[in-house]
């Protein structure tokens, strides 16, 4: 998959990352950093605010006057994380040359002092929705996994899997078109239509993964029905330096290795200019279930990205380019001929093509996917409290799928030609005008445009199409001490022109959709520690080309899928209520949600299998129904004796299809988890150590529609995991190391939302060794 040139590029990048490990001499560590945290809106001093010095891992909590103080700090760059209940976390970079006193205004701030700069420039919209974040230590725990698997740590997020290497994130039981992924601020436009099409994103580009649960159409686009996943890189450095980080991950199951590096810097001669280069390489072989290896389940991935930034007082510019390349083997035993093969596969105890030995070989069938993203972004402070953001992005996605067997026919010219070959080109542009705090009001007005074209080169499954979408939105927020209110409105128009053949006749249906979405929200803050978030909103999406026009055999799924050209707009009304109670040692979060759908688009199994020359195939037709999905996500955590943390999570979900008066198919089963972590901080070379154990229980999904599946849902299962980790410090050099064991008891299980469950068991025991080395090559 990788060209020689790509391998060389990667090698060069690795060397560049590794060379600057020579450290600069350590400066005396005797400086003080103190400050006061106040509410931006009313100047109130905020007590109980966590002020975390992330690079030294020290935490202070502000007193009743909002004051905090650190002492004995080294000269140089430090990062402060300000965390206050109900406020979005704010990062502040500080360059320490002398004792420093700061005034920090929460929740959002413009520049306060010459020495500090608020890094979090992302507009914080729709605050009345629950945002769950993975960063720092939590994100470290997911390194080496795919994006979908990483997000599973968040309650309410599950995945739709094709084995353990292809994983699509699902929010509240909804996936694909209904989940919007923002990759570095750009909506990810790949080939989302297939259940075995994972998002084409390298999670290593992110310093933070966030999930906003609930319809979020107004700000991000009318189709953000289930929620939004934000993959956010760290801000570029803003003081003269060259820093970086190396991540190495090894996994026993699949014998996979991942190496990822970041190198970034800021020029001291060219003020305001900063840069970053990042790359990841990953290779893994056959996955092992508790009893056998699965043939052809290897993966090879190579990703890289570059960022160039320029920041001056009132203007910021950013250019970004990234490429994602993956080659994923599909378990050969899961590739079936017809319905009888599938039944036979399900009846057999051990799948076909289960192996006794390990291999890295990736043969047919496999997927070869590339995704390219180039983006340019501009933000200008037009006037005090007025900001303008403009961005443009270009994305190009190639998805090539190779069937299990190359063509047999003698006339076939190129047997290495992919059987399915789709290329989608997307261009997006967005303009947002934002104002901060004008008499307790803040808001955004914006417009967005997307132009997309899709072509196929191999076998027909979805048509060629051109898609133009235009949207405008406005949102305002009213902020008081105990209450925040917000409202937003959006209008979108979509034009979809498709091209395909019926027999030899070219069809070119032309469809127009337009609709409104809205949201209303409130945050009620009776006390500093207890907040209630209420959000109601609507979202809609036009039927997608595969839902309208697909017609043929979905090889990977062994089924015939038929689109329905008469599909109408799908609409959802969502209500999400979250209660949050948070003190120093306790945190409780409960989210209740309800989604009411009209014209929910789904694949409905046909009554009669269709006879083909290959035998009988199940037929699925795209249909629409009124439906609902509602549920509860709960999380509770408590810290005892400053050294024991217990976390419990639960996720309950109910879904109903009104038109057939039965359950909705392919919804996640209820699940519960319990984790306990014992941790201790030290002051020597060993700075911190922890040991953690967890148990996750997934119930049987018996809420399925009658007799529509090839096989009954698998039984409930529980998985035990354990982790041990520590952080070392040699002078200024930090090293973070951890060892994780998942499925510790090597439990044999199958998951309802894993398509391989018809054929094989899920992944067995896996040990993961993770090493993270942040470094500073040079710091003024």
């Amino acid at each position, binding site marked *: 998959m990788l060209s020689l040139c790509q391998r060389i590029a990667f090698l060069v990048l690795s060397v560049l990352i590794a060379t600057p490990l020579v450290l600069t001499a350590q400066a005396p560590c005797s400086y003080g950093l103190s400050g006061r945290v106040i509410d931006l809106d009313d100047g109130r001093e905020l007590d109980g605010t966590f002020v975390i010095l992330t690079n030294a891992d020290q935490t202070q909590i502000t007193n009743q006057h909002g004051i905090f103080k650190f002492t004995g700090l080294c000269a140089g760059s430090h990062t402060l994380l300000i965390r206050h209940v109900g406020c979005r976390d704010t990062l502040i970079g500080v360059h320490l040359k002398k004792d420093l006193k700061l005034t920090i205004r929460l929740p959002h701030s413009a520049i306060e002092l010459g020495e500090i700069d608020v890094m979090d420039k992302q507009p914080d919209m729709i605050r009345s929705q629950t945002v769950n974040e993975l960063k720092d230590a939590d994100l470290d725990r997911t390194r080496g996994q795919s994006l979908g698997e990483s997000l599973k740590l968040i309650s309410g997020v599950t995945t739709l899997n094709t084995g353990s290497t292809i994983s699509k994130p699902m929010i509240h039981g909804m996936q694909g078109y209904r989940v919007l992924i923002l990759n570095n601020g750009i909506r990810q436009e790949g080939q989302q239509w297939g259940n075995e099409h994972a998002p084409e994103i390298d999670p290593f580009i992110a310093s933070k993964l966030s999930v906003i649960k609930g319809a979020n159409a107004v700000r991000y686009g009318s189709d953000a029905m289930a929620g939004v996943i934000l993959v956010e890189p760290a801000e570029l450095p803003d003081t003269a330096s060259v820093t970086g980080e190396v991540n190495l991950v090894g996994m026993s199951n699949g014998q996979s290795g991942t190496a990822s590096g970041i190198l970034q810097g800021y020029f*001291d001669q060219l003020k305001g200019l900063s840069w970053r280069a990042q790359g990841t390489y990953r290779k893994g072989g056959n996955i092992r279930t508790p009893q056998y290896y699965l043939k052809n389940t290897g993966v090879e991935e190579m990703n890289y990205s570059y960022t160039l930034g320029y920041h001056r007082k009132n203007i910021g510019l950013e250019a970004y380019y990234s490429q994602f390349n993956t080659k994923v083997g599909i378990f050969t035993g899961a590739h079936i001929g017809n319905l009888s093969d599938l039944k036979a596969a399900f009846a057999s105890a051990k799948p076909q093509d289960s192996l006794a030995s390990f291999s890295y070989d990736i043969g047919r069938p496999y997927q070869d996917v590339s995704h390219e993203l180039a983006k340019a972004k501009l933000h200008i402070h037009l006037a005090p409290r007025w900001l303008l953001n403009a961005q443009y992005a270009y994305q190009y996605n190639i998805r090539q799928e190779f069937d299990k067997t190359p063509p047999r026919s003698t006339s076939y010219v190129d047997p290495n030609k992919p059987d399915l070959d789709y290329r989608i080109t997307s261009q997006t542009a967005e303009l947002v005008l934002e104002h901060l705090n004008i008499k307790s009001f803040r808001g955004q007005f914006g417009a967005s445009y997307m132009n997309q074209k899709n072509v196929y080169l191999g076998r027909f499954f979805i048509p060629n199409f051109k898609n133009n979408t235009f949207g405008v939105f406005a949102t305002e927020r009213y902020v008081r001490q105990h209450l925040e209110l917000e409202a937003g409105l959006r209008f979108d128009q979509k034009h979809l022109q498709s091209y395909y053949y019926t027999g030899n006749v070219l069809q070119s249906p032309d469809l127009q959709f337009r609709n409104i979405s809205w949201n209303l929200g409130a945050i009620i803050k009776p006390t500093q520690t207890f907040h209630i978030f209420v959000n109601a909103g609507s979202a809609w999406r036009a039927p997608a080309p595969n839902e309208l026009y697909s017609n043929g055999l979905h090889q990977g799924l062994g089924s015939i899928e038929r689109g329905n050209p008469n599909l109408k707009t799908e609409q959802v009304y969502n209500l999400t209520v979250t209660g949050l109670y948070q003190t120093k040692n306790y945190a409780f979060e409960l989210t209740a949600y309800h989604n009411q759908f009209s014209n929910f688009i789904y694949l409905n199994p046909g009554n009669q299998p269709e006879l083909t020359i290959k035998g009988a195939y199940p037929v699925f037709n795209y249909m629409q129904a009124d439906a609902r999905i509602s549920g509860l996500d709960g999380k509770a955590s408590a810290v005892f004796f400053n050294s024991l943390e217990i976390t419990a999570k639960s996720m309950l979900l109910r879904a109903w299809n009104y038109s057939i008066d039965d359950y909705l198919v392919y919804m996640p089963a209820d699940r519960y988890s319990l984790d306990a972590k014992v941790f201790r901080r030290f002051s020597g070379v060993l700075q911190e150590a922890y040991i953690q154990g967890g148990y996750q229980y997934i119930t049987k999904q018996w809420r399925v529609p009658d007799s529509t599946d090839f096989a009954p849902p698998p039984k409930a299962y529980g998985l035990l995991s354990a982790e041990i980790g520590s952080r070392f410090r040699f002078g200024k050099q930090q090293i973070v190391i951890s060892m994780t064991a998942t499925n510790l008891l090597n439990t044999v299980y199958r998951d309802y939302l894993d398509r391989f469950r018809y054929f094989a068991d899920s992944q067995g025991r896996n040990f993961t060794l993770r090493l993270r080395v942040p470094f500073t090559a040079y710091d003024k």
Partner: protein
Amino acid sequence: MKTTIQTIAIVAIAALGFSACKKDKKTEEPIVETPIAPTDPPEVITTLRLALKDSASGITKTYAYKDPDGDGGTAGAFLNESGTHDTLVINANTTYFTEVYILDESKNPTDSTSKVIAGEESNEHMLFFNGNPAATGNNGNTIVSSIVPYTVKTNGSNIVIKYLDIDNGSPQRSVGLKTRWRATTPSGGTVYPLTVTLRHQPGAKDGTFAPGETDIDLTFKVKIN
């Protein structure tokens, strides 16, 4: 010095990233408005034809299943010389030499998949004839000989089918494109099912039904006079 390192790093990275590493997959991209015409699709099997030659009279009767547009689209149909018909009619106590043809008639000229199956890929394929389609695999038969020449007796219709061709593997195994059929008992008006299955078993062919996947699976009917 530090700036020099930084500059070199950026120039090196940028040069590698933006010029040399472009994927070269963008060639031959079609125009959105004119998708690739359906006359140039990848391989598809449209037709399975059975030719039964009566060894006594020398007359050959053919029966076929045709699905000209492949899977999906318009459904296929069973045909014989006189039209839609899925029932094979044979005489008891008569020997038939049967040949199976597997074709892609969407190509011009017609593409013969059975030639490949008989030739270079014969060690990857095996055809099965099964008297009871409800039974999984090859269980609708009595296996008379599991070694070369593979021989079965179909349940119900009681046709003894002996394989006449062998593959290029080692050890050599039967293929099933050429077989000899002989029934001893008239069916007395009863019509029995007869399933023809082509199994694709690359690297796994062992003379049994189980390995691999199904390429063709068609159920004809058979009447014995």
